[in-house]
């Protein structure tokens, strides 16, 4: 049961995909910047190649790359964890009931 619980918890963590606050801010800026740039670049690429399909391919591939880079909770998106204050030792924290996780 313990192994099952651990597996369930890690699967949930990957699906939920929480990232830290700095990464959230950067991800949003990157999304807007990269998608705007992609629009211009794919238009220019299609215009120069005179091929509308090429233009849409550039756009689609960039979008997929962006999704792949930002959607899963990669370790680089969790590089700035919030520093927690060290636990304050008190007399009640030594009781056995609070130790069980």
């Amino acid at each position, binding site marked *: 049961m313990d192994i099952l619980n651990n597996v369930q918890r890690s699967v949930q963590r990957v699906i939920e995909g*929480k990232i830290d606050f700095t990464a959230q801010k950067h991800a949003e800026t990157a*999304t*807007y910047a990269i998608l705007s740039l*992609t629009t211009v670049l*794919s238009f220019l690429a299609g215009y120069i*190649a005179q091929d509308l399909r090429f233009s849409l391919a550039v756009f689609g591939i960039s*979008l997929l790359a962006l999704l792949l880079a*930002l959607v*899963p909770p990669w370790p680089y998106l969790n590089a700035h964890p919030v520093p927690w204050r060290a636990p304050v030792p008190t007399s009640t924290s030594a009781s056995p009931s609070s130790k069980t996780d």
Partner: protein
Amino acid sequence: MHSTYNRISTILSHASTALMVLLGLVAATSYLTLPSAEPGTVDVKTVQVYQERYRPNEVAWVRFDLDADLRSLWTWNTKQVFAYLVVDYHDAPNSTLSANEPGADGAIVEGRKAENSIVAWDRIIRRQRDGRLRIEGGRNKYPLKAVGKKFFGAEPFRARLMYNVQPWVGLLTYGEAGATKNVLEWPKAQSAMQ
């Protein structure tokens, strides 16, 4: 941007806006840099008008030669080109259309000549290499029915080769790629073979 679902949602919604902007840019540029076809030649060789029994309207058949190059209409945003031959003529002033109805004071008003444009032949060109039109002795695909019942007495006609560029994204555009050099007279109707 805190969770997977939230990131997917944000990226895809911004991507749909970006895609619309991209397609808008494509449509705007292709409209501003619209190509045109060099005028080709259209020759109407023969015109025959028939009066079918029990049918009110005369029907005309033409034989024509077409020589036009529509390949220059293909750009990166051209899906296909619709080419069609239009026969234009004005009805006779006293034709059976309602152009000559009595006015409010009972007097006959000088009739306006109804202007007619009939599509005689068309072709959908899907590929650039099919854009070279060279037709000798072509016949109209659709019978030319006299809108005012009779062709004889109507003003002479001319034929124009028109095209309609259908883009992948953007506006439909129309153009002309040649016309007959001189106007042609309508002959008298023959009775059709039954």
